[in-house]
């Protein structure tokens, strides 16, 4: 089934935040962010700005009726800076004026004096200063200390990954509209409407029932609008609360890039030990996560790094420790993969380095150690593994042996161009690692004319979740999809939602829709049984026709709906779903946190221009474990997009902060995201359809985040090509692998 927004998307009729028609009297806001990354505010003079044309009022922390706090996991993030600024761009004042231009002009007239304090941007320095967001955490399996003694090969090193700017093409923003009796409706570009509502209630000092957060769709989120959409919505709501006027703020691209957090950069140490047969016996990793100035979601990101520290491999002895380090950067946050990619990069680096030292290919070590069903992850869960089927199928389907020979031949015959290839197996756990978040609700109404209206907590941001929700309802009822309408996501229709994140949105909300529909259907079947003088268990509906024991009757869906209504049977239902069988004990760091895992293998081939250091990605061939896909078109799009985004993270996307904590890559001319050239020349995706029972909706496994990690393979393929040109190159494990780094690696002595 095609994306249900196809028609409006291609006609320019889809409504995003900035397209909502303005209500009369709407005012416009703009944030004045700190010009310094760390310091004490000595003076804040708003008088010239206040006198500026069109300015209505300027808000600071002093105008907050509730608490000046928006920290979700740790209460360490003020909405507005009070005395201290912790990062460049930290909100200090919110100017509200009669036009965007007036608000922006007034910002330039704000005078601030800041006594500078030491700026820390390096997570390792923060750790030395003991400046941590939360206490460090360690996952342990077996006894790595003892196991290293049995190892024939022990290799250690450093692996680093840079951050990643979300660069949703729709920037952050919100539009607050005051309602009767002190209520406020906020149209927000957020992945987490309940998070916005909860923090807004605290800041304004009002109950959550006064605040409707409504989301039609996002022009991209990728994790950047999970927690970071909250502040803009609250600024608008705060102004609307005081002024009793609608207030809108849609960020300019450069404001967005400067003031919002990104994927957490990591700097990690690893030590890996193998026996003579290349079995990995022991692995130690220490992760230094650059959290930025506040916790945001970093502690949860950190946790997922630990969960994925051994990727798709079984290692019997593991010690992995992670530090969430406080620095003076904007609070870093969720980004597709959520710490998983950062952890998986390190084990892949360790394997690559071990392979070099031993004198074998990484392929051999990877293949030897793939996780099998029944093997234990470092957090105690036992694998139900598709790692080997994916790996083996990729080798045969894409003829790995032949490719390898071709590349060797090419490299022997060419001096100025070298090819490289890599294998990238992935294993990604599906569920929020915070168990309580694995719940969802859906509200389903069947109207008396037979049409259906579905509301869920899922936010549509291009991942096609609303299409999948609609499919669930139309499949369960067995009615024409055109009879089903998806609603916007509103905290007044569905309460206490989890954010659309963790790849789990379609599973959680889909199951809630399924439950709601089934409950309505059960009541309708009782009505049908009464009309047809049979048992309700004999009744089914197929293509809008009531069947008894699989034989069609004359009763249609529309008739049965109306008849149910006339008999005063409820045609509405709120479905509630909570993932069963998952648990985790953080005091032991053991449990069964994931509903299931998603597996896959990517083979990546690249060609490096050894004069220029530039490169192209020849092919990415993937075998991906879909379970049983419920929408192959949407799932394929997610895989392709995830790979492109992963390649971007690993190759060209380079975030640069200077030593003063100022973002230098603050626009699209200095921060390069994948363009149409960045897509691999060949991109093949094979669907590994598995029949194993799983907890996914219609057994269609989650697909949002896992494919991003195929992009890691590009880094190692490039590195292999560099090594083919210069085997002595000491090129390290520092992503992204920009052409500059490739060039330095090619001619490294």
């Amino acid at each position, binding site marked *: 089934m*095609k*994306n249900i927004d*196809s028609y409006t*998307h*291609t*006609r*320019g*009729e*889809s*409504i*995003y935040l*900035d397209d909502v028609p303005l209500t009369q009297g709407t005012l416009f806001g703009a944030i004045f962010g700190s010009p310094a990354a760390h310091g004490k505010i000595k003076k804040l003079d708003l008088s010239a700005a206040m006198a500026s044309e069109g300015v209505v009022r300027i808000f600071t922390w002093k105008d907050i009726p509730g608490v000046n706090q928006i920290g979700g996991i740790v209460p360490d993030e003020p909405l507005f800076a009070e005395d201290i600024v912790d990062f460049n761009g930290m909100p200090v004042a919110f100017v509200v004026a009669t036009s965007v231009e007036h608000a922006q002009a007034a910002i330039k007239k704000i005078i601030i004096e800041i006594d500078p304090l030491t700026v820390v941007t390096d997570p390792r320095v923060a750790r030395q200063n003991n400046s941590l967001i939360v206490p460090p955490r360690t996952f342990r399996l077996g006894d790595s200390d003892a196991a290293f003694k049995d190892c024939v090969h022990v290799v250690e*090193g*450093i692996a680093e990954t840079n951050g990643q700017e*979300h660069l*949703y*093409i*729709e*920037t952050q923003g919100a539009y607050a509209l005051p309602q009767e009796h002190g209520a406020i409706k906020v149209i927000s570009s957020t992945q987490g409407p309940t998070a916005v509502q909860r923090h807004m209630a605290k800041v304004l000092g009002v109950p959550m029932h006064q605040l409707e957060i409504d989301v039609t*769709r*996002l*022009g*991209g989120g*990728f994790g950047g609008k999970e927690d970071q959409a909250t502040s803009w919505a609250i600024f608008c709501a705060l102004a609307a609360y005081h002024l009793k006027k609608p207030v809108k703020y849609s960020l*300019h*691209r450069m404001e967005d890039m400067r003031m919002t957090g990104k994927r957490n950069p990591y700097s990690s*140490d690893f030590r890996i030990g193998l026996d003579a047969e290349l079995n990995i016996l022991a692995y130690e990793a220490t992760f230094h996560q650059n959290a930025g100035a506040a916790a945001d979601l970093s502690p949860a990101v950190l946790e997922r790094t630990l969960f994925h520290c051994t990727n798709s491999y079984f290692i019997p002895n593991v010690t992995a420790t992670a530090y969430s380090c406080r620095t003076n950067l904007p609070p870093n946050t969720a980004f597709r993969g959520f710490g998983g990619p950062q952890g998986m990069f390190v084990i892949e680096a360790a394997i690559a380095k071990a392979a070099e030292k031993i004198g074998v290919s990484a392929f051999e070590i990877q293949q030897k150690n793939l996780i099998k069903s029944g093997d234990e992850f470092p957090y105690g869960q036992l694998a139900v593994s598709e790692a080997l089927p994916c790996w083996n199928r990729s080798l045969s389907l894409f003829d790995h042996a032949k490719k390898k020979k071709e590349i060797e031949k090419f490299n022997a015959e060419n001096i100025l161009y070298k090819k490289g290839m890599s294998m990238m197996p992935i294993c990604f756990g599906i569920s929020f690692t915070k168990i309580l978040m694995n719940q969802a609700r859906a509200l389903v109404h069947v109207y008396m004319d037979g049409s259906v209206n579905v509301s869920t907590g899922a936010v549509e941001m*291009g*991942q*096609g979740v609303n299409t999948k929700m609609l499919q669930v309802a139309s499949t369960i009822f067995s009615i024409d999809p055109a009879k089903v309408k998806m609603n916007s996501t509103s905290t007044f229709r569905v309460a206490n939602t989890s954010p659309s994140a963790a790849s789990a949105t379609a599973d959680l909300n889909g199951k809630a829709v399924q439950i709601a529909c089934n409950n309505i259907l059960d009541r309708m079947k009782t009505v049908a049984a009464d009309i047809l003088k049979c048992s309700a268990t004999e009744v089914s509906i197929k293509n809008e026709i009531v069947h008894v024991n699989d034989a069609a009757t004359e009763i249609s869906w529309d008739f049965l709906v109306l008849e149910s209504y006339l008999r005063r049977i409820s045609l509405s239902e709120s479905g509630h779903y909570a993932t069963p069988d998952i648990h985790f004990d953080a005091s032991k760091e053991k449990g069964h946190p994931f509903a299931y895992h998603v597996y896959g293998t990517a083979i990546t081939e690249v060609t490096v221009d050894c004069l220029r250091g530039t490169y192209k990605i020849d092919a990415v061939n993937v075998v991906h474990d879909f379970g049983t896909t419920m929408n192959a078109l949407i799932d394929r*799009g*997610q895989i*392709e*997009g995830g*790979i*492109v*985004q992963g390649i971007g993270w690993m190759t060209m996307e*380079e975030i*640069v902060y*200077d*030593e003063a904590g*100022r973002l*230098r*890559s603050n*626009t*699209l*001319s200095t921060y390069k*995201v*994948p*363009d*149409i*050239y*960045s*897509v691999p020349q060949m*991109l093949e995706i094979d669907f590994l359809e598995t029949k194993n029972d799983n907890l996914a909706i219609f057994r269609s496994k989650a697909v949002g985040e896992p494919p991003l990690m195929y992009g890691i393979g590009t880094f190692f393929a490039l590195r292999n090509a560099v090594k083919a040109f210069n085997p002595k190159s*000491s090129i*390290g494990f*520092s992503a992204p692998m920009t052409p*500059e780094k490739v060039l*330095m690696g090619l001619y490294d002595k």
Partner: protein
Amino acid sequence: MERKQSFSRRFFLKTTSFAGALALIPPKAKALYTELKQRLIPTKEIMPLTVTINKKAYEVKADSRTTLLDLLRENLHLTGTKKGCDHGQCGACTVHIDGQRVLSCLTLAVMTTGKNVTTIEGLADGDKLHPMQQAFIECDGFQCGYCTPGQIMSAVACVNEGHTRSVAEIKEFMSGNLCRCGAYNGIVESIQKVAI
């Protein structure tokens, strides 16, 4: 363990920014620059503007500094054209002026006087989609949809310009439009489909 400092763009940016901060600009030169900037920035001037947009004639008054993008979105409520970066780097705001594609965020509204502007809203013939719109649906050329109007306007122009002889050529002439969801393969396929 040693950590190698490698030369990279990061190094380059850091160095140049450091040099920039240290550069001793004489105060006199600074004052001159500020004054010059003041003179160069045009003052607000409301100008009449006659323009045809999607075959409909408009007579509006616009600030001479208003971009075509803001005129379309804020004044005329044609919100199909999207603002992605507002400085010509993403392509989301692409429209046609007299059949040529332009970035409406880098075009002043007053420059369109007497011209024909086509936006995404003007592409379909009533309920009948333009072949490119149809192709984008068939080839799955989008995910979140935000860059889509710009992609489609660019794609239509790409075909009209005849830049569709190879995938490489399509890529070259579509490289100004970013899609963060990464639906590029579908976009190329859509153009190939219409070009045939």
